[in-house]
């Protein structure tokens, strides 16, 4: 029975307690709050009449604006459960007061009591709805919300239906009802305390700023955030229109009901009045429909068609209603309006709203909720009241216009939802490729000025670390006006600062600026510090401002940089010199370069390579290429730097050597420089080896490989497609090929995606199933690694096909501790990939219990393997980790013939596997 109920309500094992507690909470407050409101509606119509409704709307709206401001402040300052309890306590006090009024017959013959009941009822309802959903929201992420929020909404409808039944039966007078409401609200308070103590909220770690900035600043950043998010603006706009439509429609149907059931009754006889009974009947019917729809259809429709399909339903029904209503004042249209206001707006749009809020920037979510539910409602009510008071404006025509607008905004909102969800994920996107200059361009003029002054001020400080860092920043900004100020500051500082300044300029595009040249020449004359002198001479030699005759005596200077600057000057000498003389200088320079390269001193080798980098020729390239595979990493790096600056005229000869050097390079920086050179000369024949080589590269290097492949254009599309499909290759290599393919020919990738992923999804289920069923820790680790590797491949390939800017972010976020972040990945994938593929991967990525996940392996026709068969299968895997784990266990268990099998697998396998195999065979 429990299992059946869990399936019926989409509950996962373990969720029963939290779901039932929150469902009960929804039911309790809904009975209490809607009883107060709906009876107040009836009492108002009976004692005052619908003509005065706009006055009641205006009072409610005015009060609500003040209360909303308080609520925003309260949500910023206090915990949600405290605010919820406080709000309910106000309700208890008010309904005890109302009971007293009826008991002591205070104000029964005056209008203020009916106004007070109506105004408090509507305000109280809005506040409690906001508190309830904010309270519930902290316990669930987006995917849970899709399954469970409709259950909670349904419980609210059950509460409303109970209110309808109470009204329909006409057994309880408002006096007794007030007491009952106060008692129910008190019970609700105790339930909240219990829930707060027993349930654990799902944390959001993206609200970094919220706990830091002051309230004034947060309002400013809030407004800035709203204006910068198109989705948030549309969501706010949609809800504002909903509120205006709601009030307008409510006014229209109340006016219609008033015309159809026009009666006046005495105090105490309201419960039996025809209008009260009719309202009760209508409320009960709509609530039961809501209940059934919410419980059994909403979440299923949502999971099947997505939120986008549900968004236009209410606007379309409203549009049809108003078209008919404008033509004929029949009761059916009033009932349809009633159905929208009491039905679809709650069951569809309120539920949608709770889900759509996940597209709002996470740090603003609660504020947007309060703004919409507390501010927009009163402002919308006020606007509606104003519009409805205009005698020349037909309320039904107004409704028609609003429904058209609502439909347009709903369609726009649907379009921007996917992007908004992904943008929320990009809170965790780190722009590693940005340079200082890129950052500087993101600042406003005022901010740039502030940064400039701040950095210049740091230059005047004593901390040399900070000074160097500031100097680096100021130079990288590459602004000549700033440079002038920097030189002024450096003039005032010591020789070490000057030396650092000149060193930092070595690779700057501003190195030849006349301001720097003048300063350098002046310092060369003024300062005798050997270290500064050598730095200045090297700088001047690099920009070609030294003459061979003046440096010829420095060729054997013990200061390596001075010696280097002399060699560089001779090597670069050609202008204004006799050709023979220039040739002699060059020959001399190359002799010295050779000496430096042949020394055992790496500093000398690096200097020689630096000299070769400047004004390098094809002849220099031949020399430098040999140093690319030097045992010292620093020499490799300098050689790579030099090659990246030389024009590569003979790719046929250079390409294989660069490819080989790439596989042997020790440093990431060296690999990046080699890739930079490869980008200029690579051909289609080397694309495959390059991609296969990249599996162990760092992320930044992989991005560079991708750039190299993409730079080759469409001619490699068939090759890339073959690589993505090739199962014997490592997932990382296949993924890189897939990413490049996505950039070059995304439609081709999409067309082949289902076929590529089918096998991978099977593999993921295979790993997952056996991970949960084997009990050997080594095997478990290997299976877990395999599972995540395949899952990364699936997610990133789907992201690529869905043109997600950074699909690595998806797989990284999928491993986040934060459930809310993981659920956003699922949502992004759902909205960006084909529905049939998404249905296939849902069991892998949703937060369901392991038994659910592993049951899918069997449902898909997967076979549970015994240990021996599992090891035999893993031995054949393309993953080295699988093979290593499998052979280790085969050896441990002394499986017959494992040595022969291992020897067979050694042939043509990766180097790392061969090392492992030798070690295993020796043991």
């Amino acid at each position, binding site marked *: 029975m429990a299992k059946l109920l869990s399936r019926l309500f989409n509950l996962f094992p373990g969720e029963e307690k939290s779901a039932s507690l929150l469902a009960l909470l929804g039911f309790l407050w809904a009975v209490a709050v809607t009883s107060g409101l709906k009876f107040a509606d009836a009492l108002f119509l009976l004692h005052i009449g619908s003509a005065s409704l706009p006055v009641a709307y205006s009072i409610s709206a005015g009060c609500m604006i003040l209360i909303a401001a308080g609520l925003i402040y309260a949500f910023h300052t206090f915990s949600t459960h405290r605010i919820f309890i406080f709000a309910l306590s106000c309700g208890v006090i008010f309904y005890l007061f109302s009971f007293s009024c009826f008991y002591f017959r205070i104000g029964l013959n005056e209008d203020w009591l009916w106004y007070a009941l109506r105004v408090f009822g509507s305000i109280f309802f809005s506040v409690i709805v906001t508190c309830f959903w904010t309270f519930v929201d902290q316990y669930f992420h987006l995917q849970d919300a899709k399954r469970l929020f409709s259950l909670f909404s349904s419980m609210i409808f059950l509460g409303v239906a109970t209110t309808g039944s109470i009204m329909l039966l006409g057994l309880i007078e408002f006096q007794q009802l007030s007491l009952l409401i106060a008692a129910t609200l008190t019970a609700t308070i105790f339930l909240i305390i219990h829930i707060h103590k027993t349930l654990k909220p799902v*944390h959001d*770690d*993206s609200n*970094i*700023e919220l*706990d*830091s*900035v002051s309230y004034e*600043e947060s309002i400013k950043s809030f407004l800035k955030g709203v204006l910068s998010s198109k989705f948030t603006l549309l969501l706010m706009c949609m809800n504002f229109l909903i509120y205006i439509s709601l009030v307008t429609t409510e006014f229209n149907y109340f006016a219609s009901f008033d015309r159809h059931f026009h009666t006046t009754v005495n105090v105490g006889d309201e419960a039996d009045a025809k209008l009260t009974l009719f309202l009760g009947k209508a409320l009960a019917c709509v609530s039961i429909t809501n209940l059934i729809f919410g419980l059994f259809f909403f979440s299923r429709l949502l999971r099947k068609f997505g939120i986008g399909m549900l968004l236009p339903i209410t606007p379309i029904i409203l549009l049809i209603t108003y078209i008919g209503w404008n033509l004929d004042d029949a009761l059916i249209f009033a009932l349809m309006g009633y159905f929208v206001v009491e039905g679809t707006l709650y069951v569809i749009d309120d539920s949608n709203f709770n889900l759509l809020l996940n597209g709002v920037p996470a740090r603003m979510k609660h504020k947007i909720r309060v703004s919409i539910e507390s501010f927009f409602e009163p402002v919308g009510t006020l606007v509606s009241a104003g519009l409805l008071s205009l005698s020349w404006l037909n309320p039904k025509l107004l409704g028609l216009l609003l429904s058209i607008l609502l439909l347009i905004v709903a369609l726009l909102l649907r379009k921007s939802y996917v992007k908004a969800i992904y943008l929320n994920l990009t809170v*965790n996107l*780190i*722009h*590693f490729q*940005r*340079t*200082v200059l890129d*950052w500087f361009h993101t600042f406003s003029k005022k*901010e740039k000025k*502030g*940064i400039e002054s*701040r*950095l210049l001020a*740091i230059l005047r400080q004593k901390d040399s*670390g*900070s000074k160097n*860092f*500031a100097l*680096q*920043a100021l130079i*990288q900004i590459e602004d000549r006006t700033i440079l002038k100020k920097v030189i002024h500051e450096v003039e005032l500082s010591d020789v070490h600062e000057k030396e650092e300044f000149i060193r930092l300029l070595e690779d700057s595009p501003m190195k030849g600026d006349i301001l720097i040249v003048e300063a350098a020449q002046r310092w060369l004359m003024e300062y005798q510090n050997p270290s500064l002198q050598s730095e200045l001479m090297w700088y001047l030699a690099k920009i070609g401002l030294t003459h061979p005759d003046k440096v010829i005596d420095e060729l054997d200077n013990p200061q390596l940089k001075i010696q280097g600057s002399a060699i560089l000057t001779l090597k670069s000498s050609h202008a204004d010199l006799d050709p023979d003389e220039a040739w002699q200088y060059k020959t001399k320079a190359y002799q010295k370069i050779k000496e430096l390269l042949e020394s055992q001193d790496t500093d000398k080798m690096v200097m020689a390579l630096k000299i070769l980098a400047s004004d390098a020729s094809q002849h220099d390239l031949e020399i430098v290429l040999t140093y690319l595979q030097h045992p010292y990493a620093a020499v490799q790096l300098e050689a790579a730097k030099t090659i990246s600056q030389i024009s590569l005229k003979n790719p046929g000869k250079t390409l294989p050597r660069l490819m080989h050097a790439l596989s042997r390079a020790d440093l990431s920086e060296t690999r990046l420089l080699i890739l930079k050179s490869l980008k200029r000369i690579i051909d289609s024949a080397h694309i495959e080896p390059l991609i296969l080589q990249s599996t162990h590269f*760092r*992320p*930044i290097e992989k991005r560079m490989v991708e750039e190299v492949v993409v730079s080759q254009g469409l001619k490699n599309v068939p090759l890339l497609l073959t690589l993505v499909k090739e199962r014997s290759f490592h997932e990382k290599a296949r993924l890189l090929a897939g990413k490049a393919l996505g950039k070059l020919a995304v439609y081709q990738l999409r067309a082949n995606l289902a076929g590529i992923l089918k096998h991978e999804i099977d593999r993921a289920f295979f790993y997952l199933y056996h991970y949960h069923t084997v009990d050997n820790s080594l095997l478990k680790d290997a299976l877990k690694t395999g599972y995540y590797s395949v899952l990364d491949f699936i997610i990133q390939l789907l992201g690529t096909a869905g043109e997600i800017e950074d699909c690595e972010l998806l797989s*990284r*976020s999928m491993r*986040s*501790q*934060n459930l809310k*972040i993981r659920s956003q990945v699922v949502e992004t994938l759902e909205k960006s990939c084909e529905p049939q593929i998404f249905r296939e991967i849902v069991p892998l990525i949703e937060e369901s219990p392991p038994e659910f996940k592993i049951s899918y392996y069997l449902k898909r026709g997967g076979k549970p393997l015994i240990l021996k068969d599992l090891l035999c299968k893993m031995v054949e895997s393309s993953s080295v980790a699988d093979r290593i784990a499998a052979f280790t266990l085969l050896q441990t268990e002394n499986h017959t013939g494992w040595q022969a099998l291992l020897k067979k697998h050694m042939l043509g396998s990766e180097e790392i596997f061969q090392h492992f195999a030798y070690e295993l065979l020796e043991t």
Partner: protein
Amino acid sequence: MKKLSLIDKAFVLKRTPLFSELDLDLILTIADKLGISVFEENETVFLFGDEATKMYFVVKGQLQLFDEEGQAMQELKPLDFFGDEALFNERPRYYTVKSMTESTLLTLSRTNLLTIISECPSVAVGLLQVYSSAHPLRARTL
């Protein structure tokens, strides 16, 4: 408190042992992901047993670490960092941190820290150096 700009955050990071090896480009990129938290005197930063979602760098002020029984463990001063351990072992906080004076902290979320480590191994090396100097005679058992 004066608002910390991106450059200010970058300078704080550069002076911490974790990020001292990184280039300005990378430091600015990381600084962009830092939040700012301001705590009054005697305010709690986090409690023993709290869920860990971020680590902290002290910009200004003095903080005190307390164990489960409320015994003072260690004092923290500007440029110290804390709260990183629980991000790696995925366990709740195992100490309480209170601000002894008004303090300004920079915060870095777990997701961002792990991404930074994957891109910049020197950050991981920096963390290992800190851990190994804190436990030079750590038992070599797992």
